[in-house]
């Protein structure tokens, strides 16, 4: 079982939910990213989502767009993030998934990427512009390496897409909480509970909810619906805060996710 699968299994046994924070690798610099990994672990993160900067992040709002631009100015690439995780693995065993856009993977080479990422200790990836419809080749490669490709579902997804995405997704299913982009304000569809029940009716895979969740109150509101909660832009906005304040915020999120 993958590190992600094992983590959800362990949490289910404890009747707990996953806290999945997102940070952009190399924002403001890679040294800070290393410190942030430690802080996130200390504050109870279960899985870390590590953004790899891309020049044209069309599923992201302004906060992550700007973080990507800063990281690109630092020279961060997919290759350098793979090396970073390989180095991190000497000391940290927390599951790590990368989140980026498909062109970086395509340009790196799918086969080479899966091999290098798996051997570096990256556990999976989330690629918003790679629906399962376009992923058959990389799914076959990932399956052989135990590397999880996590696909997304949205409030707009009808039944047939729910079945397709749920079948293809590895590790967990990423449920996009809003019809929109990352960092937008959270306005939950009143039917969110029904949507998620619809996914549960066709799949036993864990479901994590993300997009637009920024406060402990919001995290607490969605947590009961899911197996995990993802917080991205709101953390990216705070990575340069004094550590004590950042830790207080992260702990407040952690304790809200139940």
């Amino acid at each position, binding site marked *: 079982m993958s590190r992600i699968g094992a983590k959800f299994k362990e949490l289910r046994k404890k009747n707990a939910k996953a806290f999945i924070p997102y940070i952009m690798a190399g924002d403001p610099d890679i040294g800070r990213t290393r410190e942030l990994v430690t802080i996130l672990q200390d504050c109870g993160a279960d899985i870390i989502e590590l953004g790899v900067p891309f020049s044209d992040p069309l*599923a992201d709002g302004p906060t992550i767009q700007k973080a990507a631009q800063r990281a690109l100015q630092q020279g961060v690439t997919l290759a350098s993030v793979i090396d970073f995780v390989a180095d991190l693995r000497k000391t940290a065993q927390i599951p790590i998934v990368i989140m980026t856009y498909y062109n970086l993977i395509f340009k790196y080479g799918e086969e080479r990427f899966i091999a290098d990422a798996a051997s570096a200790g990256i556990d999976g990836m989330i690629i918003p*512009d790679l*629906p399962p*419809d376009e992923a058959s080749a990389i799914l076959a490669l990932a399956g052989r390496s135990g590397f999880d490709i996590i696909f997304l579902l949205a409030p707009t997804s009808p039944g047939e*897409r729910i079945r397709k995405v749920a079948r293809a997704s590895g590790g967990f299913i990423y449920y996009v909480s809003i019809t929109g*982009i990352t960092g937008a304000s959270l306005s939950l569809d009143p039917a969110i509970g029904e949507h998620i029940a619809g996914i549960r009716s066709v799949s036993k895979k864990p479901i994590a909810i993300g997009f637009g969740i920024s406060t402990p109150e919001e995290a607490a509101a969605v947590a009961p619906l899911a197996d995990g909660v993802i917080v991205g832009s709101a953390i990216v906005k705070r990575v340069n805060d004094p550590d004590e304040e950042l830790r207080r915020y992260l702990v407040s999120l952690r304790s809200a996710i139940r």
Partner: protein
Amino acid sequence: MTMHGKFPDKRGYFGAYGGRFAPETLMPALEELERAYQASKRDRDFQKELRHLLRTYVGRPTPLYFAGRLTTHLGGAKIYLKREDLAHTGAHKINNALGQALLAKRMGKKRLIAETGAGQHGVATATGAALTGLECEIYMGSDDVARQSLNVFRMRLLGARVVEVAIGSCTLKDAINEGMRDWTTNVRTTHYVMGTVFGPHPFPMMVRDYQSVIGREAKRQILAEEKKLPDYLIACVGGGSNAMGLFNEFMDNADVKMIGVEAGGRSIRPGEHAARFAGGSLGVLQGTKSYLLQDEAGNILGTHSVSAGLDYAAVGPEHVFLKDTGRVKYTYATDEEALDAFELLARKEGIIPALESSHALAEAIKLAPQLSGDRIIIINLSGRGDKDVQHVARIKGIEL
């Protein structure tokens, strides 16, 4: 059914290019759009309305004009201009924008959004929105807003909101990103009017089909005038919609050679041009697999062209397919060559072409003298140059 008519396949691929690389939130909308588009093709009332508006509102057919003084000046092949500059709103963009506006209305959408580079597609979409009574919002890079201020005001006059996009390279690519973000947020009520043969399936197919009226008319017109098919078709290629519009009808006429002209900018050095076939490589951007200007890590490079409409890092996937098969040859014209062609056409024919179309003219200026006088070239004069007059004056250091 022609040989070429088989493309794209069911998954939106032209050979190895194209596809649907879109966020999950948009996938159902793209599937719905594909179904609605196919249904509209079978809907006789819809087709009748579109044809009626193309005739009475857009002013089609646009003339095929024999450019006699330019032909004499160049001393070779006969040059015909397909006068898309005479279509309502001044460019070929209206053919597609009108089709998509009617389709959006048929689908029950309340709002149109679009990206624009030179502003022509933004104006065309704003026009389609005014005609159909839909709300309209246009995304435009802040660099383009500065160099195409006339078109910005035109869009506002037509009732559209123009949103300036000041991130990334501040041009067309960034306007598309922002348009896709809007669509992701408002997909239930909004239709995204993609302006070129790019983006996720079905856009490259749909935009090509709406533009194919150009080639259908040109074929009929040249046969009436010359009793034979042309030897060459020449069109500029940004995303590539005017080129696909002219070329598509001639695909199976093997003797008709086709040339697509990209923007060579200042030079073929990274960041100085937009010639994807000269300096690009295969990648995936904004929903489709195609040729891109990108760095080794896969990040998209900045581009430059004197013409905002060609200043774009990617090209439509069908063009990559046509390059592979050898059916279309691709070349580029530099800023300087395009500016020379711009002035030459104005002086010799009394027609001020768009800077985009001037790239196609620049290629004809090189080609025509090498051909004998019984050869025929059709150039797609995709738009008029009024929008570029201020910009050209600025380049020449003339204060208006």
